[in-house]
């Protein structure tokens, strides 16, 4: 059995809130592809950005607790996090625990106090939803399971800046043919192309969306997002495919704000890559949460005769 066939699933906080549609579409696509998810029991926040700024080692602990439950209580070998922030933080915790004695000491001390086993680096493999589908199923098997096609849909694949950065916490990337690239990520491009989509050349695929500035400096975020949206349109895209709930809601929210505040209207839509794959796999848009998106994906998919 492929090691990604059944994995521990760490949805993270965003997928219970603004990224709810990403959660439901990830589960629906997994089901359609025969991939199984065991949700991590009693999971907690990964530490996100807030805790990291208060004390980075507490953030390492919070991520390690999630990995400890997956490795020790669930006996999982692989944990999958679809959110770029969670994925990044789990990978970073793994790296810190492998390379930094002070992080190990802090995590061990808090784990003992909290009454659970201390997570040991190397006990678990953390992957993203893109790895899960790309390496768990692959393009050829995906093609065999398609019930529809994304033919005629031009897609700009947007990975955001945390999926590949910093490079040193992703030792499995940049390993040549078949591996993901940190400078030119392509896993989402590969999967959506297999589902019939036409990927456009999109040079801002890993550019910053200003996500962390959303509340503290909304104008900068809006301008960064507007530039991404306009570049996607200039590249000929109908839709921007996303793989991070923070990026996704930032693109949607600032598209509206750009029109209201700056008077700049853009037409490109946003859909999670799991929603696009789900449509091609014949899953109903409702089960994929397409109606929950602020961006009107339904009318685009109908216009393109995909629905």
């Amino acid at each position: 059995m492929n090691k990604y066939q059944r994995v521990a699933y760490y949805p993270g906080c965003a997928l219970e809130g603004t990224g709810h549609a990403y959660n439901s579409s990830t589960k629906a696509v997994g089901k359609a592809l025969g991939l199984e998810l065991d949700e991590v029991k009693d999971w907690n926040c990964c530490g996100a950005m807030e805790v990291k700024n208060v004390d980075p080692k507490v953030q390492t602990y919070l991520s390690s607790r999630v990995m400890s439950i997956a490795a020790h209580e669930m006996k999982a070998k692989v944990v999958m996090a679809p959110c770029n922030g969670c994925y990044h933080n789990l990978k970073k915790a793994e790296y810190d625990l492998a390379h930094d004695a002070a992080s190990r000491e802090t995590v061990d001390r808090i784990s003992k106090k909290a009454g659970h086993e201390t997570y040991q680096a190397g006990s678990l493999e953390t992957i993203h939803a893109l790895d899960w589908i790309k390496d768990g199923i692959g393009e050829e098997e995906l093609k065999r399971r398609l019930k529809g096609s994304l033919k005629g849909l031009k897609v700009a694949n947007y990975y955001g800046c945390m999926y590949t950065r910093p490079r040193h916490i992703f030792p499995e990337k940049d390993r040549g043919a078949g591996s993901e690239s940190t400078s030119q990520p392509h896993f989402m491009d590969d999967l959506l192309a297999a589902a019939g989509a036409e990927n456009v050349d999109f040079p801002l695929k890993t550019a910053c969306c200003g996500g962390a500035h959303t509340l503290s400096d909304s104008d900068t975020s809006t301008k960064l997002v507007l530039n991404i949206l306009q570049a996607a349109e200039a590249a000929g895209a109908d839709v921007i495919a996303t793989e991070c709930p923070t990026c996704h809601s930032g693109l949607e929210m600032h598209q509206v704000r750009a029109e209201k505040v700056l008077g700049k209207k853009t037409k490109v839509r946003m859909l999670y890559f799991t929603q696009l794959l789900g449509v091609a796999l014949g899953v109903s848009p409702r089960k994929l949460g397409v109606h929950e998106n602020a961006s009107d994906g339904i009318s685009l998919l109908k216009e393109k005769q995909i629905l």
Partner: protein
Amino acid sequence: MRQQLLAQAEAVLEEWMKARGEVPTQETIEGFRLLALHRQGARGVPSFNACRETCREIAYHYNLLSGSPEKRDHLERMMGMLVEHLSLFVRGKMEVEGLGEFCCASRPLRQQSAVEEGSDG
């Protein structure tokens, strides 16, 4: 046009270096001063690497523009957007520099307000 856009991108990173009190490098990496400036600018500021690929894409588009005359307009437009993105990113970064991590600037702000509240009381 491509020289102009490349010079604009370099000027953005020069401003970043000057704001940090450093002398912008004249060195090049892979033939581009822009890439050397980026590397210099990211020293000690890992989050500055969030614009690394934008710089590399600017260099890539500069090279593409040496050929492909039929795509010149499109490539120039895309290169312009990349330079605009770099400019927006660095501008935002300069605003929060000194306030903490780019990915969350709240901690020093809270510390500052805590000090002020303490002195009020």
